[in-house]
């Protein structure tokens, strides 16, 4: 066994700068794969039907995804923090019902505040159960989802509740600069959540807690408070979403919003957020929401047989997420 020496090279300091820069940029491109898919979907729809690229259609698409989008935004923060809020759809219902009842008894404004506070309270219960209560996040919010669902039925007397004061509807329908108030609320909440995550100490706490709970705790991060706050935010936002949907039809029923959570979770994950926590961004969730909204819109406009809609939609989702996963983690 003889020696074959390496050519004397510089000691292992920073790697060859050119190679790294190219490598890093390529990774960046891969990170945005899902955005390319969204753009492709948008272009494809614009080309396949002229009913797509109209002002009224696009505004409808955006406004129609407000409820799901709101829940997905706040749900993103919970997931990044390492939690999981399955009960958001149920909180949506209970808050709306409480809001409507109080509105009928007192006034719409007080009703909306009551609905919002209800969402916060239900979220806080989730937060306490999953931190101090030491219940697994998935199981805990599954339990509250069922319990809150029952609460919705009980409080509403299991029937449709009508809103007496039509000014309640202003929450959803008021137009500002051509867009409905509900749309603006979605934009505001998305921007706020994005701001929270990227610019605040709370955001750092969230990423740390979700990224490595033990390490965050040993770094002095208040992990329980962070998770609880995320759940309260999720509850509050679900409440707002519930009030908006009630405002649209001036009525609410206990089964409203039951499937929202699954669409919201799909949007969060399609956008490329990690279900394990510690990584992610609100823009990703918004991309996911947009993709799901466009798919549904496409079905309507193209008149796809409802029989096949679910198969097509599931396939598109698999393609989108698969392509994203494949390009992102090439070891």
């Amino acid at each position, binding site marked *: 066994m003889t020696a074959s020496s390496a050519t004397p090279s510089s000691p292992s300091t920073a790697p060859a700068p050119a190679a790294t820069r190219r490598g890093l940029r390529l990774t960046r491109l891969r990170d945005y794969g899902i955005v390319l898919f969204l753009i492709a979907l948008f272009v494809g729809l614009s080309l396949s039907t002229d009913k797509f690229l109209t002002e009224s259609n696009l505004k409808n698409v955006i406004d129609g995804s407000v409820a799901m989008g709101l829940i997905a935004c706040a749900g993103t923060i919970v997931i990044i923090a390492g939690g999981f809020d399955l009960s958001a759809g149920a909180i949506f219902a209970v808050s709306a019902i409480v809001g409507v009842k109080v509105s009928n008894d007192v006034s719409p404004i007080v009703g909306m505040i009551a609905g919002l506070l209800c969402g916060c309270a239900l979220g806080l219960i989730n937060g306490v159960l999953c931190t101090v209560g030491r219940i697994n996040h998935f199981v805990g919010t599954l339990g509250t989802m069922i319990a809150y669902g029952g609460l919705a039925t009980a409080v509403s007397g299991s029937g449709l509740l009508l809103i007496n004061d039509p000014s309640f509807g202003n929450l959803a329908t008021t137009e500002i600069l051509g867009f409905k108030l509900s749309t603006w609320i979605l934009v505001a909440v998305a921007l706020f959540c994005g701001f929270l995550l990227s610019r605040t100490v709370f955001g*750092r706490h969230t990423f740390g807690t979700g*990224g490595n709970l033990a390490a965050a705790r040993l*770094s002095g991060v208040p992990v329980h408070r962070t998770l609880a706050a995320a759940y309260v935010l999720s509850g509050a936002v679900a409440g707002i979403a519930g009030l908006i949907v009630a405002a649209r039809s001036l009525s609410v029923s206990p089964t409203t919003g039951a499937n929202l959570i699954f669409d919201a979770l799909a949007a969060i994950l399609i956008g490329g957020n990690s279900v394990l926590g*510690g990584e992610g961004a609100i823009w990703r969730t918004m991309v996911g929401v947009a993709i799901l909204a466009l798919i549904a819109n496409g079905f309507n406009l193209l008149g796809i047989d409802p029989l096949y809609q679910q198969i097509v939609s599931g396939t598109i989702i698999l393609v989108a997420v698969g392509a994203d996963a494949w390009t992102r983690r090439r070891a």
Partner: protein
Amino acid sequence: MSGEAAAQPHIELRGVSKNYGGVQAVRDVSLEIARGSVHAIVGENGAGKSTVSKIIAGVIPPSLGELRVAGQPADFASPRQALAAGIAMIDQELAMVPARSVIDNIFLGAESRRLGRLDTRAQRRRFEELIEQTGFNLDGDQHVRSLSVADQQKVEILRAIARDAELIIMDEPTAPLTQVEADQLYEIISDLRKGGTTILYISHFLDEVLQISDTVTVMRDGLHVSTKPAAEETEASLVRGMLGRSLELAFPQRRACDPASAPVLEVRGLTAAGRFADVSFDLRPGEIVGMAGLIGSGRTEVLRAVFGADPVDSGEILLGGTQLRARSPRALIDRGLVMLPENRKDDGLVMCRSVAENTVMAHLDDVSTNGLVRRDRQRKAVGKLMKDLDVRTSSPDAPMSSLSGGNQQKVLFAKCLMGNPRVLLVDEPTRGVDVGAKRAIYDLITSLAEEGMAVLVVSSELEEVLGLAHRVLVMRRGRLVANLDAADADEETVLSHAFGTAAAAA
């Protein structure tokens, strides 16, 4: 040992390269591993040793070049195929299912079958044979998670032997072991070698490598530097090959600390049932105190308890003369006591976040106003710490996982030091860190003490403890059994206290 030059090499690499994106982990490496020999690979973190072994074990494919096993080209698509070719790997992070039994783990992936069902009797028979053959003292039905690390390793070795492995790759096997357990491992390796098994051994411990191997390969920056019989190398020559320059391996000079100064940390009668009992000690400013003891003696538990990470049953802790009532990591960090945890991946760093985020995580208030993070202040603070500690990274926004072990450890130090603590508790300062970074960390600890910081170092490397500390505490089975001045602390004395073989001390 590596005698029969005419015989075909067991494993051969020809011009093997591996790149990840733009990064070349291994460049044009060619080497031969002789059958029935103990062949070691040494190199700094990032030199490519683990990558080479993973290529041989079928965990990752080479980007270029050829792997030959027993003269035949081999193109493994998975570790399973490598196993079928007689190659087994025991990784640094032991790969077992903690909730399953020893027997289940040994036969995982190669279960005995009879008529489509699991043949537990055949497995148990084979297990008994293996125990007989190796002389290991293991209970087949015990759950793996309740075993010590040393015993878990034995399970991994049995797993390799059960598959009739002809080549066993061991990556840093002695890092988590005590000297006694390491010696047992050397025996095992020697027996395996006598039985004709080839061993590929990766380690940072150069003395160990020279002791047990026949041939040593040195790698640097992904390149093959040399492959020579171990007899022709010395620690110094290996270091020269690894770094491309010489390195003074001795410990930095420590300045004597003032024995009259008031202690900054006083621990009195700390007790936690099942973990430790009646632990009392002092720490003075500028003092480096080492804490030695066998694995399981309670050192980490004491550190975590002082830091407030775990609760205690009774006892007092005084910091700067004031008794500490509220004990949590946050409370202690705010009062100037910080702990560097034993396991940086599990407890110290958030691997998916960036270097900068990890560095400031314990002191976010110092780089923010009213809850808003100020990027400029963060950049300044991080920049200064990176420079002071000489952390090598492409950018402060690089993910933690892209750094070498040594640099990750430096970032962990940076995080702990950001608030200029008065007391630093360090648990295994150089675990999984290469020679160059080790020395840098020793220099760091010594200079921190010179500037007045009190440092408590827990380490399983006795050499490290003796080289750094002004005083040595020894733990045994949860109790503090010795408090020795550097002058009185030598390897034999410390070990005899750790094992409990010392006569009743004066």
